[in-house]
């Protein structure tokens, strides 16, 4: 689960990481209140809040350029905010449809002496947390890693020993800090690690972490993503979830315990098991079709879930055909067949439907479908099923 920059910065502040003074606003009234807290004589940074990077270089669909603006005084900031609020921002990470901006974050401007990069990630290969730091802040860290790998500092932290002072000192010295800045940096990294660990984050990233001409270190941007499996332990983090940032079909699916991801194609799939669901998408593509979604109904789906799955699939106007692929193990084919029949009664399925059943109680499942009168094409193998649905959709 991801959160917005302003939410991430509030969390950072709770853990003792200094950030510039800032205020979030979602309505024009809140914009006014937020600006009243900031000085008219100083620079104000206006930042569109969406769950995607590349905001500064992004363009709004009406042609207004930049989702991050440095403004002199309140009027300029107000003008920028009015352009951004409720407008749709397209960045290299949003896709061409962009994201609607529903929150603006105003922060105090600050003079920058140098920009650094600092992050902690949980590395799946070593099962350790890794601190990643670089003197090349403010840019795409993956580019830095590719072009000048020697500028990337990596320190692994054991989950049982945790972050120690020597880790902080080592990173600080490698970044070139000295004197009081070593202490400042150690406080920041300690707070960051504590937050990373206590909140079950998968990634915390500060890019850039800056030094001011006066020698102060602070976080100018922040990105945090949390382990979805751990959210139940953190009601405070759960409250930060912004449903506007998620596909409504995916939100609906999660209510029914279905794993659904919307894609760009026109052949919907309904499968049991994540691996088989991916493989089903792959085989549709290998026959020249395009999958409209990933959908795993899980190992124990009931009639209600299958009906909900059909409703979600059919709410996507792009869908021109449906492929159901079930390998019944614990999930019995007759149960799935009853689900399909019930769904066909409740939901008006106007597109071609191909069903491939295999596994436990397959004969009973096939018989139920045959006798139900539901308009569908049965298939005996996955290849056959994919071939038929692609042909039917492409006409």
């Amino acid at each position, binding site marked *: 689960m991801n959160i917005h920059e302003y939410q991430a910065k509030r969390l950072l502040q709770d853990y003792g990481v200094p950030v510039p003074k800032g205020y979030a606003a979602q309505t024009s009234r809140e914009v006014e209140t937020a600006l009243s807290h900031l000085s008219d004589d100083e620079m104000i940074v206006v930042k569109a809040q969406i769950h995607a990077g590349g905001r500064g270089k992004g363009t709004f669909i009406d042609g207004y350029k930049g989702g991050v603006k440095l403004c002199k005084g309140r009027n300029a900031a107000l003008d920028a905010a009015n352009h951004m609020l409720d407008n749709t921002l397209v960045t290299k990470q949003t896709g061409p449809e962009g994201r609607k901006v529903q929150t603006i974050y105003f922060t105090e401007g600050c003079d920058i002496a140098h920009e650094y990069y600092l992050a902690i990630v949980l590395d799946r290969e070593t*099962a*350790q947390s890794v601190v990643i730091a670089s003197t090349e802040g403010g840019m795409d860290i993956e580019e830095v890693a590719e072009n000048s790998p020697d500028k990337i500092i990596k320190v692994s932290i054991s989950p*049982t020993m945790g972050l120690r002072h020597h880790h902080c000192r080592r990173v600080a010295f490698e970044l070139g800090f000295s004197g009081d800045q070593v202490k400042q940096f150690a406080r920041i990294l300690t707070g960051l690690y504590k937050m990373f660990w206590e909140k079950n984050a998968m990634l915390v990233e500060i890019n850039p972490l800056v030094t001011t001409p006066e020698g102060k270190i602070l976080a100018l941007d922040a990105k945090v993503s949390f382990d979805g499996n751990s959210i139940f332990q953190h009601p405070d983090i759960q409250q930060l979830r912004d449903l506007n940032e998620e596909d409504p079909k995916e939100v609906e699916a999660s209510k029914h315990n279905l794993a659904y991801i919307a894609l760009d194609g026109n052949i919907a799939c309904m499968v049991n098991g*994540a*691996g088989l669901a*991916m*493989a089903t998408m*792959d085989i549709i593509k290998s026959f020249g079709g395009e999958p409209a979604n990933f959908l795993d109904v899980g190992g124990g789906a009931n009639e209600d879930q299958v009906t909900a799955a059909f409703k979600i699939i059919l709410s996507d106007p792009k869908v021109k055909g449906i492929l159901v692929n079930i390998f019944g*193990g614990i999930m019995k084919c007759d149960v799935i067949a009853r689900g399909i029949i019930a769904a066909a009664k409740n939901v008006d399925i106007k597109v071609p439907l191909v069903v491939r059943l*295999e596994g436990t109680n397959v004969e009973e499942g096939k018989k139920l479908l045959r006798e139900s009168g539901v308009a569908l094409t049965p298939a005996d193998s996955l290849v056959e099923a994919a071939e038929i649905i692609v042909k039917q959709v492409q006409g």
Partner: protein
Amino acid sequence: MSILVNKDTRLVVQGITGKTGTFHTLQCIEYGTNVVAGVTPGKGGQLWENKVPVCNTVAEAVEEHGANVSVIYVPPPFAADSILEAIEAEVPLVICITEGVPVRDMAEVRRRLYFHNTKTRLIGPNCPGIITPGECKIGIMPGYIHKPGRVGVVSRSGTLTYEAVWQLTQRGHGQSTCIGIGGDPINGTSQTDAIRMFNEDPDTDAIIMIGEIGGSAEEEACAYIKEHVKKPVAGFIAGASAPKGRTMGHAGAIVSASGVGTAEAKFAAMEDAGVSIARNPSEIADALLKIYKG
């Protein structure tokens, strides 16, 4: 003719009295698995389904009932603790079926597995389990699709494994052992671990590896295969059509924004290691039978 589990396996079920634990334990007993005890803290002394003694701790199940393998059907918040309890009780093999275990908990478990005196191998979490056809079924896979034989199967996915196993069985080829290692980013047994065991098993003649996008488990396995494995190996990777940056159902199945974990990279590694590649999930058995006559 197998690895890790066989007719001598004495299973303890952690979470035996829960709904999931009860359902799957009954299925496993029906298949012929020797379930010697269950563990549900606070229900020690009871007899589950009038068949299996329930203990309060795993240590008790080991000491009093001689359990040598444990399977875990405990809900996600308590699953890691159950794994650690089984490790402390020195159970040689622990299989965690539970889906949704916090990743940080698994990072701690993995550190514990690295301790020099650890006697336990962990399979999972978020996996279908392990089966040696005709002898012992531990987990949630349907027993009847399997058949005793000499092909070892290792996979990150559940139903996709059933697909491959069913293809083998229909073509008359049985399996020595089938292991689901699970779809999570941090797990106990890797593709490489399983392939090493199959390679060293005199009763396994050929190997099927089923992977998914995300991570580098398949690339590491291919490096091992290239260097050490003379037995025929076939492989498939699910997720070639998945977009970057989206988690495809399994927490571990994600291609990062920088492109790490793509299906192309994994197929290329398989090609380099001389693995017979199935480009399509319905050709997994055929990909093996091209290079293995059995």
